[in-house]
């Protein structure tokens, strides 16, 4: 009667020398292969599921790709931003030069270029085409100007604010102009887009779980008879769950591959117009496809979601099928 009290593992290892871990690896390999074969029994139905999931994956992935690269572009533009300081009209040339050398010593300022009132007028004359009218003026209406480039580490909005505040308190300074408004707007737009993308990703992840769950539910329903027999001859829950979890894995993998292809096609399609746009801003920015890391993340996310979706459903559905 010792036979009876033995677990199947002991029973199995009695007949042949195979360790438990080896047996598990072999069993998992078998299920991996058999679930792979099962995929091709209904190729069209599976393809449709994969496409559905691929679209749900590609959409947030594409937005994330664009965002991560756009915020990079924002940083680039930020770096070229500068502060224009207009000196009061009664400032002498010497005072202007002195101020510029003093300011250049500050740690938050990388570079100061001084443009005297005369230089400013000359530049304005040549660029505006109003030479005649300007020549008729008795006095130069333009102030001397300082162009200030902040140090890279002081480019944040707070640091810039502090710097402009301090500049305004200086003698001889009439006006401080920072062209930051559009940068602030860009940052806000990026922040909004980011939150939008994350919410969308969360919703679509939920969608993936539901789609996979529903697919698995249908699979279980169609194999109900088989499941009943397996339960009656003593198949464990883990044994019954395994093929569905592996099916979930394959679903995730194929969906991710299709999503990846959709993304790369999108990048190729958008490449030229984005290049023109970037060039018009004198930027050499280009939209890149998914990196190796990005591709891995896409596949990993897709597979995890699918296996999770399958796991959540399979447990409940299998409990519903009991031999009566």
């Amino acid at each position, binding site marked *: 009667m010792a036979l009876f009290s033995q677990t199947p593992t002991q029973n*199995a290892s009695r007949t042949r020398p*195979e360790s438990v871990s080896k047996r598990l690896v072999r069993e998992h390999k078998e299920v991996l292969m058999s679930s792979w074969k099962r995929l091709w029994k209904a190729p069209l139905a599976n393809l449709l599921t994969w496409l559905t999931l691929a679209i749900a994956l590609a959409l947030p992935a594409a937005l994330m790709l664009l965002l991560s690269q756009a915020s990079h572009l924002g940083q680039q533009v930020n770096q070229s931003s500068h502060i224009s300081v207009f000196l009061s009209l009664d400032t002498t040339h010497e005072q202007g030069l002195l101020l510029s050398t003093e300011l250049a010593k500050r740690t938050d300022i990388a570079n100061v270029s001084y443009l005297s009132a005369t230089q400013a007028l000359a530049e304005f004359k040549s660029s505006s085409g109003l030479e005649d009218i300007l020549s008729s003026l008795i006095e130069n209406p333009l102030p001397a100007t300082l162009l200030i480039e902040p140090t890279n580490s002081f480019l944040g909005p707070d640091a810039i604010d502090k710097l402009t505040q301090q500049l305004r308190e200086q003698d001889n300074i009439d006006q401080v102009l920072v062209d930051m408004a559009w940068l602030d707007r860009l940052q806000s737009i990026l922040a909004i887009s980011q939150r939008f993308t994350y919410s969308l990703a969360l919703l679509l992840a939920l969608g993936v779980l539901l789609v996979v769950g529903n697919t698995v539910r249908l699979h279980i329903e169609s194999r109900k008879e088989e499941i009943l027999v397996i339960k009656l001859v003593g198949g464990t829950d883990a044994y019954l769950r395994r093929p569905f979890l592996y099916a979930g894995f394959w679903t995730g993998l194929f969906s991710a591959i299709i999503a990846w292809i959709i993304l790369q096609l999108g990048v190729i399609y958008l490449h030229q117009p984005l290049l023109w746009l970037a060039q018009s801003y004198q930027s050499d920015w280009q939209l890149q496809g998914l990196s190796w890391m990005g591709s891995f993340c896409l596949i990993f996310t897709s597979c995890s979601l699918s296996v999770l979706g399958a796991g959540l459903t399979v447990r409940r559905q299998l409990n519903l099928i009991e*031999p009566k």
Partner: protein
Amino acid sequence: MISFEQVSKKYHEKNALANASFHLQRGTMAFLTGHSGAGKSTLLKLIMLMAHPTSGKVIVDRQDLSQLNRAQVPAHRRKIGLVFQNHQLLMDYSVFDNVALPLKISGYNERDSGRRVRAALDKVGLLDKERLSPQTLSSGEQQRIGIARAIVNKPKLILADEPTGNLDPALSAEIMRLFQQFNQVGVSVLIASHDLELIQRLPHPVIALNQGRISGSASLMGH
């Protein structure tokens, strides 16, 4: 091998089994009779843990079944070879794969499993049909596949629910001879059947059920 102690099972306030007590000795072959609705299936279900008694104690192979939790049910079922009236074969599996199913579940590798499956198929005389689909076989052959599946794991107990229900007398006698052969090598066998004619011709003890009660029993019972 099997002990029922004052076992009752109620479905919707109706007694499917009432105060049933019996004891099946190890290595015995016995019949369970009674017309449909008498509680035969209920009794087998309690042994298979497909149902739990409302009261009383069921002991199989020295194990009190009420002590087993959900996770221990599969291991308990693997100890028992179960033969159904309607075969419960999987039609999209080959004959071989149907019989191999209990071994696959227990984690046998292909070589050992193949050897055992062929031995079982040989015993029921279907060795040459292993690659076929059960659908292409006759009712008697399908029942023999079911029997091969029940014995492939070498259980010490075989339960059969109306194994000859759909078969003609000659085939029925043949199936019973198979069970007798397993019994001769020490396997305990409990067969639910209403085929009284067949049962009376065989020298095995009988547990008779009538409306959920054990109304008559032959020599085997300990109680």
